[in-house]
C-alpha cells in the first residue's frame, strides 16, 4: 500500500487522478492545488510517491517542479513523478541532477493509458525512473552527432530507448518481444559500445544511461 500525494490545480484532473490511484490500490494521503501546499505536504507527510503538475498556482510558472526539487534537496531520493503538458530536457536534467533515482517525468497524456501510468507510479515509488518517451526521443535527437551512439544497431537503439525510459529487463523483453537473455546481451553490447561500466541493478543502469545521454 503506497501512500500518494497528488498536486494538480485543475479539479477534474486532480479528482480523476485520485480515483485512478485509489482504484489501483494506492492510498491518497493528500490532494493539493498550489506550490506552497505541495512543499509543505511533501515535507510533512513524506509520501511514498507524489504526483506533481509542473505549473501550479500562485505563479503558474514552474511552482510544482521547484517544490519537488526543494523537497528532494531536504529529503534525498524522495520519490516524485512530475507531470506536464510539455516536456523539456532542461527540466529532466534538473530532476536527474542529484542522481538518486525515484524520479518520473511524464507528459500528462500518459494518464490516458491507466496501466502504463500506474506501472510508472509504482516504479518511481520503488526508487526507479520513469522518463517520457518524448524526453528520450529529444535526448537522442540532441545526441545525433554522438559517434558511439551512431554505432548502435537499430535493435540496440530500441533497447536503449526503452531502458532509458526506466524499464527493467523483463519489461523491455515484453515490450520488444525479445527473450530476457537476448535483452541482457543487447544491454551488455550497448554498455560496451558507450564505454559504461555494466551494472546488474536496474535503477543504477538506467541512471548511468541517462547521465551518459545528458553529458555530451
Amino acid at each position, binding site marked *: 500500500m503506497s501512500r500518494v500525494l497528488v498536486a494538480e490545480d485543475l479539479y477534474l484532473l486532480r479528482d480523476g487522478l485520485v480515483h485512478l490511484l485509489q482504484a489501483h490500490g494506492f492510498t491518497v494521503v493528500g490532494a493539493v492545488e498550489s506550490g506552497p501546499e505541495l512543499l509543505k505536504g511533501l515535507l510533512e507527510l513524506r509520501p511514498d510517491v507524489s504526483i506533481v503538475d509542473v*505549473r501550479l498556482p500562485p505563479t503558474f*510558472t514552474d511552482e510544482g517542479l521547484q517544490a519537488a526539487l526543494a523537497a528532494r534537496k531536504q529529503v534525498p531520493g524522495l520519490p516524485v513523478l512530475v507531470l506536464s503538458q510539455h516536456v*523539456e530536457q*532542461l527540466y529532466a536534467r534538473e530532476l536527474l541532477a542529484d542522481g538518486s533515482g525515484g524520479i518520473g517525468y511524464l*507528459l500528462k497524456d500518459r494518464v490516458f493509458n491507466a496501466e502504463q501510468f500506474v506501472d510508472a507510479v509504482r516504479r518511481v515509488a520503488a526508487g526507479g525512473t520513469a522518463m517520457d518517451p518524448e524526453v528520450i526521443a529529444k535526448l537522442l*535527437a*540532441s545526441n*545525433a552527432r554522438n559517434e558511439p551512439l551512431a554505432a548502435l544497431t537499430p535493435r540496440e537503439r530500441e533497447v536503449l530507448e526503452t531502458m532509458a525510459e526506466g524499464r527493467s529487463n523483463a519489461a523491455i523483453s515484453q515490450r520488444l518481444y525479445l527473450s530476457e537473455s537476448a535483452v541482457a546481451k543487447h544491454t551488455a553490447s550497448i554498455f560496451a559500445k558507450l564505454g559504461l561500466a555494466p551494472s546488474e541493478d536496474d535503477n543504477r543502469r538506467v541512471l548511468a544511461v541517462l547521465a551518459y545521454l545528458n553529458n555530451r
Partner: protein
Amino acid sequence: MSGYRRLESMLRRFGRLAVLLALAGVQVPAVALAAVMLLLSFALGMVFLFPPQVRMVRRVAQLHRRLVARWTGLAIEPPYLPAPPPPVPQADGMYRSDRTLYKTPRVPAWNDRFKWLLTDPATWRDEVWLLFDPLVKVALVPLFLVMPGRGMRVYALWADLLLGATAASRLAGQVSHLRRTRNLAADSQAAEMRRIERDLHDGTQARLVAIGMTLGAVEQLVDTDPDAAKALLAKARDASSETLTELRRVIRGIHPPVLAERGLPDAVRALAIDSPLQVTVNVDLPHRPDAPVEAAVYFAVSELLSNAARHGDARTATVDISAHGGALRVTVTDDGMGGADPSKGSGLAGIERRLAAFDGVLALHSPPGGPTTVTMELPRVLPEYWFGELPEMPRWKSALVIGLWATAWCPTFPQGLVAGGHKLLGYDGDNPSWFLALHLPEPLQWPAILGMTAVGVIMHAMAVRIPARHNRDPWLGQLLPRPIC
C-alpha cells in the same frame, strides 16, 4: 620634431581655409544659378527645374556637413524629411494624384517628390544658408588667420544653425520610421495569426471532429458489438493523444511554455540542450526584460541555432546575451563553414522583421570557411537603470537642494513680492519692518525688490532642476526626439 609638427598643423589649417575659400568661390556662381533656376521655376512656371535645383543645393550643403564633421568633429545631422513612398496603384491599376488618374506611376511619383521638396522647411533653410554662406566665410577670414581652431568652430556653429536637424525634422523622421516598423510588425503578426489559424483548422479541429465521430460510432455499437466498440474507443484515445501532441507544437510556436515558466536565460539554455550542437550559453542580465522582447530574442536564437545545425555544418556554438546600458545585445557564434547569405532563405529576414518591432538590428558576419557570427542589438528595450539602481545624488547635491528649498521662499515672498505689494499700496517709510528693500533709499527700492524676486525664482528653479538633470536619461531622455541612425 615638434617644429615639423607645428609646421604640419599650420599647413593643415591654412589648407582648410583655402578649401573653404575655394568653396566660397564655387558657391557664388551656384547662388546665381540657384536664384535663376528658382525664378524660372516659379515666375515662368518651369517647375521641372525645381527638383534639380534642390538637388544641387543639397549636394553643396551635404559637402559642407561632411567637411565640418571631419574638421571639427561636430556631426551635423541632415534635417531632410524622408522621401515619399512610391505611389501605390488603386484596385483598378490606375495611379491617383489628387483628382487625376494616371496609367503609369511616373507623374504621380514626380508630383509627390515635388511636393516633398517644396514643403520641407529644410529646403528653404538650405537656400538661405547658401545665400549667406560665402559672406560668412569671407567675414570669418580674419578670425581663421588669428585663431584657426576657434574660427573653424564658429563656422561649424553657423553651419549647424541652418544645416542641422531641428526637433521637428527629427520627429518627422521618427514618425515615418515608426510607421514603417509598425507596418512590418503588423504584417508579421498577421502572418503568424494566419499560420496558427491554419494549424488549428487543419490539424486540431479536424482531429477533434474525427474523435467525435468515432465516439458517435461507439455509442451505436456498444450494445450490439462491444468488441468493436472497445477497439474504436482505443482509436479515439490514440487520436486524442495525437491531438495533444499537435496542440503542443502549435503552442510552442505561439509562446514556448519554458519561456513563460522560466524566462529568457533558462529558455535559451533549454534550446541549447535540445540542439544537436554543443552550445555554450552566457546570459548576463540583472533582471527579466519585457515578455515581447524575450519572445523575439528566443525565436531569433532558436532560428539561428537551427540554421547553424542545418546549413552551417557546425559542431559548437556560443550564445551571449548581455545588457549594454538600455540595449540588449545577443551574439550567436558557430564554428560552421560560414558563407551564410541573408538573401537566400527567409530565416534571417524573418528574424529581422521580428526585431524591427523593437528598432532592433541584425549584423551577420559569415566569411566562407566560417566562423559565422550574428549580432543582434535591441536598443532601449531595457530600462537604463533597473529599479533600485538609480545613481544616487552625491551628498553635497542633496544638501544643496534641501538648502535651496528651505531658503528660496525668503527672497521670493517676504523680501520680493510682499515688499513690492507693500510699496505699491504705499506702506513704505512709516513702518519698513523687516523688508530690507524698504530700508534702502527710494531709487534703490524697486531694483532691490525685483532683484530679490529674481534671486528667489532662480533658487526655486535650481532646486527643481538639479535632481531632474541628475537622472535625465531615464525619464526625460525617452520623450525627446532623437537622431535616427
